[in-house]
């Protein structure tokens, strides 16, 4: 079962707007409805009346897996009664996995690489970030639609796969290495002894889940103390 190139491109383009109308009450519901309506040919009004109040929120790069599976149900003319249940279960699973994979691992890793190479060598840093990051998430978006459409609701088992686990592990290792390497962006004349206690204090604040604005206020207080006393 294949989704078709034109339909895939259309879905991909509209999926770029998934979060355009994000709101606290419905989250990505409108985006989900728009993408699904673009993908289905028949039963459009039936779908809208049944699912206009369907709550939808998942990771934007992983939404394709779920929408692909919804389209699979439509094209196979499966019963639409279980659709809500499947959407509820899979959106949380893909959201949690996407947050960990993209927001907590791949994006920060590539950003740290961009910071080091950008400060040292200029434009090459942001370009490396844009190229690698977009290659990965655009691949995931396409892969999501095609796999979701092919596998139907079994697509959720893809999260158990070893490949995604290894992508995450490798990305974490590279990120950890680059974090260790981060001080090289400072000039050699700087007093690096401050780095260790300051990093320690910030780590404690982060682990204690202190609000980001308080951490930033703390940075200001440190600068003002230094300005007055040192």
């Amino acid at each position, binding site marked *: 079962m294949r989704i078709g190139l034109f339909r895939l491109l259309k879905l991909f383009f509209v999926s770029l*707007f998934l979060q*355009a*109308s*994000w709101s*606290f*009450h*419905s989250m990505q519901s*409108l985006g989900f*409805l*728009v993408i699904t309506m673009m993908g289905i040919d028949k039963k459009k*009004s039936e779908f809208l009346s049944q699912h*206009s109040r369907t709550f939808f929120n998942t990771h934007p*790069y992983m939404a394709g897996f779920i929408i692909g599976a919804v389209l699979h149900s439509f094209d196979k003319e499966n019963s639409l009664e279980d659709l809500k249940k499947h959407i509820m279960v899979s959106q949380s699973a893909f959201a949690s996995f996407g947050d960990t994979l993209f927001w*907590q*691992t791949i*994006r*920060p890793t590539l*950003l*740290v690489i*961009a*910071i080091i190479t*950008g400060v040292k060598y*200029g*434009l090459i840093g*942001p370009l490396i*970030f*844009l190229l690698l*990051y*977009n290659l990965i998430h655009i691949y995931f978006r396409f892969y999501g639609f095609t796999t979701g459409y092919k596998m139907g609701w079994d697509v959720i088992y893809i999260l158990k796969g070893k490949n995604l686990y290894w992508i995450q592990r490798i990305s*974490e*290792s590279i*990120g*950890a*290495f*680059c*974090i*260790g*390497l*981060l*001080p*090289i962006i*400072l000039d050699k004349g700087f*007093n*690096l002894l*401050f*780095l260790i206690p*300051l*990093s320690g204090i*910030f*780590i404690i*604040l*982060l682990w204690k889940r202190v609000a*980001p604005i308080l*951490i*930033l206020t703390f*940075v*200001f207080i*440190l*600068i003002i103390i230094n*300005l007055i006393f040192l």
Partner: protein
Amino acid sequence: MMVISLTLLGALILLDKYAFGEFGISQPIVAGAIIGALCGDAKTGIFVGALFQMVFLVNLPIGKDIPPDAQAAGIAGCGSYFLLKGSNQTEPNLMIVFLIGILVSVLGSSLDIIVRRINEGLFYRFLRDHKKLYICHFAGVGTAFIRGLVLLLPLFFLVSIIKFPVSGAAFNKEFLLINIVSLGIANGIYLYFKRQSFYFLVIGVICALAYFVF
């Protein structure tokens, strides 16, 4: 003219935060490079963007959480840097730029909440009339763009007319940088502190030490 062009560019870049694509263009280091290139100094733009990037490395928009607006902070910080450079004709004070960025990050998240409430209204409008699905959804792009304008236009206008003191530029750079790199390292350790990646962190530290020693 520069205020208008920076505001429009900033508001367009801010669409990438969630309204369109999420290609990473709005990340401070990339936005800094774009704004820097527009102002004729991409390297400085990248440097200022990298500062904000380190501060906001752990910035996770998970579920309903609205973290400080790192993207707006980066754009406001870089834009202000170049406006100060143009209007004050002296080396801009990094500390003031940093302060502006942080304030905008807080303002930006508050505006995010307002925009999402407006989007809620769009959703209810759709519920009343299903034919308006596409209009209500894509109007969200407009609200996101207006948010960018509302946030950046008054700020850039103020920055372009106010003369800031420029004392202690050399001091600021060293101490501010050490603070921000420390925060970047702390953010990274917070993200990656796991047994399997700990060894890689240690190897990275050894390489950094070797760089400073040799």
